[in-house]
């Protein structure tokens, strides 16, 4: 192969390489900015948006009912949120479910329905939700319910069950704190990148 031919071959090879890199770059850009819903594995579906809108309306309804002192109706509104199709495959839906459960738990506790509140909260906590500030909040609500129970048992003279409830409450608060710490660390790390 003559030197001239060799140089030409190198130029052609370089051009092909540059073209391939450019094509790869374009594909990557398309991939990163693709607005098509099917681009992500969990695109925002209309069904989710409708569910979130319904939950939002029910929360506002509950706010207004509580303002006018209609606690029972407020509780019904929050129960209606939990009756929505809040599937865990959508993180937002799961979070709404956890938040509604926390709110309902607090409302039931406020009404003195401690047992039902705890059952509801523990049911949600046992559903294996992903870690979030909502899950941490629900752990905290569980801690509050157990704390209230411990106080009630203590007042009733049931020392050992009261201590047991207090220990569980402390554990619940601790879990809440740990979740928050991990999430805040993640957010900080993401912020640095």
């Amino acid at each position, binding site marked *: 192969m003559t030197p001239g031919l060799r140089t030409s071959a190198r130029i052609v090879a370089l051009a092909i390489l540059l073209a391939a890199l450019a094509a790869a770059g374009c594909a990557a850009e398309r991939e*990163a900015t693709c607005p098509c819903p099917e681009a992500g594995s*969990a695109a925002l579906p209309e069904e989710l948006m409708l569910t979130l809108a319904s939950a939002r309306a029910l929360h506002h309804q509950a706010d207004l009912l509580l303002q006018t002192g209609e606690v029972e109706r407020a509780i019904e509104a929050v129960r209606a949120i939990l009756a929505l199709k809040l599937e865990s495959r959508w*993180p937002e839906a799961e979070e709404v479910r956890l938040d509604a459960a926390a709110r309902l738990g607090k409302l039931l506790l406020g009404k003195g329905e401690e047992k039902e509140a705890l059952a509801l909260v523990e049911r949600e906590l046992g559903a294996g939700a992903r870690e979030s500030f909502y899950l941490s909040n629900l752990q*905290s609500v569980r801690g509050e319910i157990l704390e209230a129970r411990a106080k009630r048992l203590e007042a009733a003279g049931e020392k050992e069950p009261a201590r047991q409830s207090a220990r569980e409450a402390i554990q619940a608060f601790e879990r809440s704190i740990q979740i928050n710490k991990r999430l805040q660390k993640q957010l900080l790390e993401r912020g640095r990148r």
Partner: protein
Amino acid sequence: MNDNDKRSSDSPEAGWPEDEAPASEAERLAAERLRAALDGTGAQPADADEAELRAAAAMLRAAAHEEHLAPAARDRLVREAIAGATLAHARPASRLRRLAPALALAASVLLLLGSLLLVGRAPLRDRQRRPAPAPRELATSRPSNDLLGRPIEDRERASAARRLDLVFADRLAGFRRTRLLAAGGTP
């Protein structure tokens, strides 16, 4: 009016003052030449005096009404003007004049490059003018921890509606953007 009066009014002597002698033959010929010169008719001038008379008459005629050049005369004038202009500009070329073609070529190349740059940048400008496509993250369902930014405090427990307002508004923006862009519209 009798025949004698009629002949008298049509003849050159009509209205001639009685105390004036009649025009001589030479005067009649001179008058005839002047008329022909003013009319632009007649044969070629016989001598220099007549040529001068014709020129003066032509000026008078041109001042009195629009005069058209004969094609031959027009072509001659144009040829003379071009020849004069060419001679007037046939001076030795300056350095600038010698460089003019190269400068023109350089300017053309610069103009062409500028045009290519503008054309090349046009799609980029259009892309910048358009709203940026929704990044994949905006178009998907995802945890909203980053949206909340911090743990839910005790006093915020009852503010579920406010939290959901925040999350819903964010997701609705992504949803709307995704759908409208997918449909070829602008959010």
